C-alpha cells in the first residue's frame, strides 16, 4: 500500500515552488489532446481545476450532484478571500500570510504547501478581476479590503456578503467557455459512487445518473477529487444538504489515506438552533466581527431573566455586560480565530450565561458600531448639533451598506430586527480541515488520484482562518494542479484511451449495484434521516467542540452499533432505476457512519488540544488549548484496512524550518 512521501522540493522555502515548476515534466500540446481527466465536484477547487486543465488542452469530464456546477456549496461563502497583495500598505507580504496561516492552524500544517498558497494568492485576485468578478471597490476605483479573524492586516477581498458566489460564478464562466469549446463535458445530477483502479492507478469512476438511475462507467488517465468537506457527519452544519463525504470516503477505501479527520472547524457566528425540525444551520459572516461586539450578561440572574423573556438585552447597562472576548483576548478582541471564539462562547453558555430559550446563544451587538459610524458621518457631512438618535440612524445606514444582506437574512430566519436588538449567535460545524492526505503535488497515496480544496487536508492545519478556504480552493485548481498533474501525465502520453470494459470496471459496477439494491430491499422501519440525526447527535455531544477520552470511546462504540442497526433497519422507498433522493441520502449516510467512527478514533488518539481539536484533559489553567509538540507534531494519515476501527496510523512529521513554533496567543 501507499507510503507517506510528501515530495516537498528541496531548497529555500520561497524558491521551492518556482524551482519545482521549472523541473517537472510537461506534456506537449498535441499529446494533451489524448489525455482524459475526471474532476469530481465543481466548486471553487474542482471548477477552477477543470477550467484550467481544459484550457491547457486536456479532455475534461466534470461531475456534480447539483443540476448545475454553479450551485456547488462554495457559493455560500460570504465574507471574502485573502491575498497578500499589500494594497493597504499595512505591512502584508507572502511571508506574513504564510505565518498567519501556519500559526492560525496551530502548527499542524505543512510549511511548504502553505507558503505556496500565500505565494499564488495575489495571482488569484488578478485572475478573478480579469474574469469580471465584481469585487468591492473604493471611490478611487481600486479594490477594497477588510480584516478577518486571527490577523493584524487587511488582506481580505470581498463582494459584499456574497464573495463565494461571485468567485464561483467567475469559475463557472471559465468552465462554460470550455464547455462551449467542447473541452469540458459537464455531467450534472451525477454522483460519483466509486473510483476504479487499474494496475494500482486511478483510471476512472463509477457514477450514477441521478435522473435516470443509470450506473455509468467513465475512464480517464487521472482523477481529481474536489468534493468538499464532511461537516454533514454532524447532521446539522452550515454545509448544503447534499454535501457529503462519499467521493472522498470511497477513494479512502480504495487506498487513499485520510488525514486528521478530527480537525473540524466550528464557526462562532451562526444562527442558533430553533427546534427539532431544524434541517441545517445558517452562518453569519465572520466579517460581522469587525463591527459587532460579542457579549453575555455579567450576572447569572440577568441571563436567566433574558432567557425567560423578563428582560431585554437593550435594557442591560453597559457595566452589566461581559464582553468576554475583549476581556480574555485584549490584543485581538472580537477578532480572535474561529476556534478560540467558538470555545469561549461554549464556555460562557455552559456556565449558564446563554441568552436564548435553549441557553445556547450569545449576543453579537452592533450598537457601538452604529454610534462610531454615525459620528464619522456627522463629521464628513458637516452636520451640527446632531442628536444621539440622528447619529445612530446615520450609523445604521453605514452598517446597512456593509452588511445589509446579512442583516436581512437574519431577520427573515429569526424574525427579530438586528438593527434594534442584538443578534443571537452560537457556534456550528462549518468546515473540515482534515481530508484526503496529499503530497506537495496534491496527489493522494493512490497514483493518478488527486485531491483539491476542502477535500484534502493540506493547508489549514488544525484550524482554518477566515477567508482562506476560497483562497485555497482556487489556488489548488487554477495554479497548482495544472502544473503538478502534467508531471504525472507525462508518463501517460502513449497509454491511449482507457477501456471501460475491463474486469476492474465490471467489479466496481457490480458492487455499487449490489449496495443500491440492498438499500431498497432492506425494507426496514426507520428513514435515512432518523439514522443521520442520531449520528449527528453522538458526534455533536461527544466529538464536537470539546472532547474527552470517555466520551470518545462511547462515541466509537455507539457509532458502530448505529451503523449495524442502519444496515438492518433502514427504509428506502422508491426504485434504483430512477430519480430517488432517499436512495442518494442512504449512500451518503452509510459513508458518514463509517467516517464518524474514524473521526472519533482520530480524536481519541490525539492526546493534545490544538486548533479546532479540544481535549478537555489537555488545557491550561486558564482553559486555553494545550498542545503537545513533542508527541503530536505530525499529520495523522489513516489507512483503510476493512473496518474504521482497524484503520492503520501513518505519521507525517511536521518540520518547521521557517517559522518559530510558539504557543498560539491572541491575548
Amino acid at each position: 500500500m501507499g507510503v507517506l512521501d510528501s515530495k516537498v522540493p528541496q531548497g529555500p522555502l520561497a524558491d521551492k515552488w518556482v524551482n519545482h515548476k521549472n523541473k517537472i515534466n510537461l506534456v506537449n500540446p498535441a499529446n494533451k489532446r489524448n489525455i482524459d481527466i475526471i474532476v469530481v465536484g465543481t466548486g471553487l477547487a474542482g471548477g477552477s481545476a477543470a477550467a484550467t486543465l481544459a484550457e491547457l488542452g486536456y479532455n475534461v469530464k466534470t461531475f456534480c450532484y447539483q443540476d448545475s456546477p454553479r450551485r456547488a456549496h462554495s457559493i455560500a461563502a460570504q465574507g471574502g478571500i485573502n491575498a497578500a497583495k499589500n494594497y493597504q500598505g499595512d505591512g502584508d507580504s507572502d511571508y506574513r500570510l504564510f505565518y498567519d496561516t501556519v500559526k492560525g492552524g496551530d502548527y499542524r500544517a505543512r510549511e511548504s504547501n502553505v507558503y505556496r498558497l500565500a505565494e499564488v494568492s495575489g495571482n488569484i485576485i488578478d485572475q478573478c478581476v480579469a474574469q469580471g468578478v465584481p469585487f468591492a471597490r473604493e471611490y478611487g476605483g481600486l479594490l477594497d479590503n477588510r480584516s478577518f479573524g486571527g490577523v493584524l492586516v487587511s488582506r481580505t477581498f470581498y463582494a459584499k456578503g456574497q464573495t463565494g458566489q461571485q468567485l464561483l460564478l467567475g469559475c463557472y464562466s471559465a468552465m462554460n467557455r470550455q464547455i462551449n469549446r467542447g473541452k469540458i463535458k459537464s455531467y450534472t445530477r451525477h454522483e460519483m459512487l466509486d473510483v476504479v483502479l487499474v494496475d494500482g492507478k486511478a483510471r476512472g469512476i463509477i457514477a450514477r445518473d441521478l435522473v435516470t438511475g443509470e450506473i455509468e462507467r467513465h475512464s480517464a488517465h487521472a482523477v481529481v477529487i474536489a468534493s468538499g468537506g464532511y461537516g454533514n457527519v454532524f447532521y446539522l452544519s452550515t454545509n448544503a444538504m447534499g454535501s457529503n463525504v462519499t467521493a472522498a470516503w470511497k477513494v479512502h477505501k480504495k487506498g487513499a489515506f485520510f488525514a486528521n479527520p478530527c480537525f473540524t472547524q466550528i464557526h462562532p457566528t451562526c444562527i442558533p438552533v430553533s427546534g427539532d425540525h431544524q434541517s441545517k444551520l445558517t452562518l453569519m459572516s465572520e466579517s460581522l466581527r469587525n463591527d459587532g461586539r460579542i457579549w453575555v450578561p455579567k450576572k447569572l440572574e440577568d441571563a436567566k431573566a433574558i432567557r425567560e423573556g423578563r428582560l431585554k438585552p437593550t435594557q442591560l447597562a453597559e457595566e452589566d455586560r461581559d464582553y468576554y472576548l475583549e476581556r480574555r483576548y485584549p490584543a485581538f478582541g472580537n477578532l480572535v480565530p474561529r476556534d478560540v471564539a467558538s470555545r469561549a462562547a461554549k464556555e460562557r453558555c455552559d456556565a449558564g450565561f446563554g441568552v436564548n430559550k435553549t441557553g445556547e446563544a450569545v449576543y453579537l451587538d452592533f450598537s457601538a458600531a452604529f454610534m462610531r459610524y454615525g459620528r464619522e458621518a456627522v463629521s464628513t457631512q458637516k452636520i451640527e448639533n446632531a442628536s444621539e438618535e440622528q447619529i445612530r440612524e446615520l450609523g445604521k445606514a453605514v452598517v446597512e451598506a456593509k452588511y445589509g444582506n446579512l442583516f436581512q437574512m437574519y431577520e427573515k430566519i429569526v424574525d427579530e430586527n438586528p438593527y434594534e436588538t442584538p443578534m443571537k449567535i452560537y457556534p456550528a460545524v462549518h468546515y473540515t480541515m482534515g481530508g484526503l492526505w496529499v503530497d506537495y503535488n496534491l496527489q493522494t497515496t493512490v497514483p493518478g488520484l488527486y485531491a483539491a480544496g476542502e477535500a484534502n487536508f493540506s493547508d489549514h492545519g488544525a484550524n482554518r482562518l477566515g477567508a482562506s478556504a476560497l483562497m485555497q480552493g482556487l489556488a489548488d485548481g487554477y495554479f497548482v494542479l495544472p502544473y503538478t498533474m502534467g508531471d504525472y501525465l507525462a508518463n501517460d502520453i502513449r497509454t491511449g484511451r482507457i477501456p471501460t470494459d475491463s474486469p476492474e470496471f465490471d467489479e466496481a459496477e457490480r458492487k455499487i449495484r449490489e449496495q443500491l439494491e440492498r438499500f431498497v430491499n432492506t425494507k426496514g422501519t426507520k428513514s435515512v434521516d432518523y439514522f443521520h440525526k442520531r449520528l449527528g447527535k453522538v458526534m455533536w455531544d461527544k466529538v464536537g467542540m470539546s472532547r474527552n477520552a470517555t466520551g470518545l470511546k462511547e462515541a466509537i462504540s455507539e457509532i458502530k452499533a448505529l451503523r449495524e442497526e442502519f444496515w438492518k433497519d433502514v427504509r428506502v422507498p422508491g426504485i434504483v432505476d430512477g430519480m430517488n433522493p432517499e436512495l442518494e441520502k442512504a449512500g451518503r449516510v452509510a459513508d458518514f457512519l463509517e467516517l464518524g467512527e474514524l473521526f472519533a478514533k482520530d480524536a481519541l488518539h490525539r492526546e493534545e488540544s490544538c486548533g479546532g481539536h479540544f481535549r478537555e484533559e489537555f488545557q491550561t489553567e486558564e482553559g486555553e488549548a494545550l498542545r503537545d509538540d513533542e508527541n503530536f507534531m505530525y499529520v495523522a494519515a489513516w489507512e483503510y484496512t476493512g473496518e474504521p476501527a482497524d484503520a492503520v496510523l501513518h505519521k507525517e512529521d511536521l518540520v518547521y524550518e521557517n517559522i518559530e513554533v510558539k504557543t498560539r496567543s491572541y491575548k
Partner: protein
Amino acid sequence: MNLTLKIWRQKDATSKGAIQTYQLEGVEPDMSFLEMLDVLNQELIDKGEEPVVFDHDCREGICGTCSLQINGEPHGPDRGVTTCQLHMRMFKDGDTITIEPFRAKAFPVIKDLVVDRSSFERIQQAGGYVSVNTSGNTQDANSIPIAKDKADAAFYAATCIGCGACVAACKNASAMLFTSAKVSQMALLPQGEVEADRRVLAMVEQMDKEGFGNCTNTGACEIECPKGISLENIARMNREYLRASVK
C-alpha cells in the same frame, strides 16, 4: 398549525401528473417551507409511501437550487427570499397551500416538483464569460480602476442565482431577466466590453432557441426575483443587442 397541502405529483418526465391532497398537522411558525415539506416526507416514508421530490441544497438562499410555485407565486408569498428562506410564519393555521413545479416549456418536469433547468446552462455556455485564460499571467488587479458605481451595478446584476423564478413568474415564460443579468454584468465592466457584441448576440440566440418567450414588459419577474434583479438589465440588454445587430 394544521395545513392542507395540494401538491403536484408526477412519476417521471413522460408520465402525466396530478395534484394530490395531504393534511399536515403540527407545523411550527419557525420552520422553513422546506422543513415543513421534510416533515410531510417523514410522515409519507413512515406510512410506506414515496416522499415528494423537490430540489433544494444550500437552504440559505444562495445556491438557486430550490424552486416551487407556491399558491401561484415562485418562491411563495414573501418578497426577496427563496423558498428555503420562506418561513411558515407567513401562513395561518387552516391554510390550504398549492405547491407546483415552475412551469415553462423550457423547464420540463423531471419528477414531482423537480424541473430541468439545463436550458439556463446552455444560455450561459453560449457566451456568459470573458475569454481570458486562467493561466495566472494576467495583469495586476488594480491596474484597471473601475468606478465604484459601475462596479456596484455590475455586482448587483451578478447576484442572480439562476433559480428560474423570473421565467416561472412571466406569462410568456421569458428568460430575459436571467440572460440580461449576465449580459449587464459583463457590459458594465471594462473586462467584458471587448466581447460585448458577440456575447449578447450569442446568448440571445440561445435563449430563443431554448423556447423561452419574449419580454412584454410586464415586470412580474422583477417582483418575484428573490435577489431583486432589476428590469433595467433588460433595457440594457436590449440596447446592447440593438447596437450589436446593426454593426
